């Protein structure tokens, strides 16, 4: 069992630093396994948020060698045999302790999104949807709310404009509602306004880190931006609106 060097950020909101641990690594291990081993043997009180250990719950988001990742889906064999592994909490959210961050800002954004408002139920009692419409929305519903896309988003991370932009996760949530074939609510004004779709400058970093491989930018954010443009900036429509005073 080869021994590996781990640098783990330890601390609280008041501050902290990297602490080094040497630990055995077995074949097939993921980073979360190694953190558990450190917890059991070397640092009993190390704080790590995790749950399913199968990439389905989105709890163990952290930054591993500088990349936002799920620790449970990061296999050790993707790193060089003698490479030091550095693990730190997500930078975009306030630290609670060690690798655990306070992600409650995200829950507050979710509450602001106008809910699903379905069409009235047809006379036969059952709704009908086309498979392609279902598939489109289904991609967005794969989201496990790990918030890695929020962590990597330049608007939230580097520019700290949480006040102006809800971030990729909630653009996807908005897209899943806007593109739902049975939904009747109009969220386009809010997407342009309070949710800040214009702030995204399409660097695609969010798509790159998504563990569910949701095409956040191409299938979610860009179509929403297009809907905003169609509504507010289409010159022909604008002219027609003026003429017919719609």
């Amino acid at each position, binding site marked *: 069992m080869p021994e590996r060097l781990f640098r783990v950020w330890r601390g609280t909101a008041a501050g902290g630093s990297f602490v080094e641990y040497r630990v055995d690594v077995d074949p097939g291990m993921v980073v979360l396994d190694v953190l558990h081993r450190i917890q059991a043997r070397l640092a009993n*009180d190390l704080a790590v948020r995790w749950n399913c250990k199968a990439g389905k719950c989105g709890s163990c988001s952290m930054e591993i060698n500088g990349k936002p990742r799920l620790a449970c889906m990061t296999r050790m064999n993707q790193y060089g045999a003698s490479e030091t592994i550095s693990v730190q909490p997500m930078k975009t959210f306030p630290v609670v302790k060690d690798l655990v961050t*306070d992600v409650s800002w995200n*829950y507050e954004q979710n509450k602001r999104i106008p809910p699903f408002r379905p069409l009235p139920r047809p006379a036969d009692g059952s709704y009908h949807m086309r498979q392609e419409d279902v598939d489109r929305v289904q991609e967005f519903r794969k989201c496990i709310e790990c918030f890695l896309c929020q962590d990597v988003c330049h608007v939230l991370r580097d520019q700290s404009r949480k006040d102006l932009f809800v971030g990729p996760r909630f653009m996807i949530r908005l897209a899943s509602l806007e593109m739902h074939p049975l939904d009747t609510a109009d969220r386009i004004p809010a997407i342009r306004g309070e949710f800040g779709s214009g702030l995204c400058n399409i660097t695609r970093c969010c798509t790159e880190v998504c563990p569910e491989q949701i095409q956040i930018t191409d299938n979610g954010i860009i179509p929403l931006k297009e809907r905003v443009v169609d509504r507010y900036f289409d010159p022909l429509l604008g002219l027609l609106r003026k003429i017919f005073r719609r």
Partner: protein
Amino acid sequence: MGDRTGLEIIRTLQDHAVHKGFGIYMECTALQLLLDGERLAGVVGYWRESGRFVLFRTRAVVLATGGGGRAWRITSNSWEYTGDGYAMAYDAGAELMDMEFTQFHPTGMVWPPSVRGILVTEGVRGDGGILLNQEKDRFMFRYIPEKFAAETAASEEEANRWLKGDKTARRPPELLTRDVVARAITQEVNEGRGSPHGGVFLDIASRVPAETIRKKLPSMYHQFKELAEIDITREPMEVGPTLHYFMGGVRVDSDTQMSTVPGLFAAGEAAAGMHGANRLGGNSLSDLLVFGRLAGVGTAQYVRGLGAVPRVHEEEVRTAVRRATEILNRETGANPYAVHEDLQNAMGRYVGIVRTEAELKSALGELERLKRDAATVRAPGASQYNAAWHEALDLRALLVTAEAVTRAALVRQESRGAHTRVDHPGEREDWQKVNVIVRKGTDGRMETRVEKRADPPKDLAAIAYAAIEDLEAGRA
């Protein structure tokens, strides 16, 4: 939705709750139920993020704490499945029932070691996956129990026709009940016909086109690709039994979901009774929808009918807090992670898929020793988000759960559903009529007793004993 049905239900409920403005206490762990006389009066818990305690004064509690799979080493359950609901209810004087019926799902991942136990959904077999041993033998045809022979395919040819939707064909043997498949896999492995990592092969690659696999089993495709570096559209998976589900739990009234403690309710895996000795695949989701609602309705009814508001007794709160903080204040003591690992090994060794009286008694001996260790366990550091402290707090619940399962398994001297006693093979009619009940005795020790089951209402009994053809034709 394929293998994501449960996830979709979660999403829908979550979205609904968010927009209804439900209060959700994130990362708040319940530690102890408080009583006023016999009635429920409150809950003491703690916030993980701050390590501070919190007291909820409440007239009713619905336990939705799931099962206790974490008492075993190989389990599909996440870390929270520590039996905390069972233990809290037990301490409050509630009865537990059917605890001997612990379901081992036949197909958990077996390699790599770090993912051992993680679930491979039944959907793989439902969509055409077959089980093979090292010799490429489709062994399940050799394990069809007599009572299921009439409804199980007799040949591969017939099983294939069933998959294509032929109504005259019978189900493939891979879809037999979970206990049958789990025992068959165990026997194949024990007799030396297992796969390289101690399981058997689950093959869908050679049976279903790659595109269909990716579409119908997206989670499984992803899980194996990422965690085991196996492409299930090209290679077989290696699988083996994993502790998955507790059929038993808190004994509740089937109409209101209230336990034997007034004001304490339970639903889902935390509650007993719904799935008998052996849950069928997919049934826990419908259980949650139906009995989750009944629990809500039952709770509202109870609260409305309650006269005086029950009082919380401060001394009880102080005791609960003291019991928790002692763990942080000790200078020396056992490592909670090590105690947990010992427990998991003991349960895996002595309270597995097949059980004997001697092994179950060895388990009780181990549990006594582990209880002593757990009583002096120590967690270093502050209370804020302290993983060791949480682990230490969970240990008590895990031990109560493990002991309840072991004692109930000793009492039931027959093999039924998920409970297999090698020393008492076969179902026995007298045991069909009774449940094993576990509760805390007046001396603080765990008591078991056997209680006759009440007859079910006539209309439900008619459904239960109807032939499958009558059910499908709507005649029952």
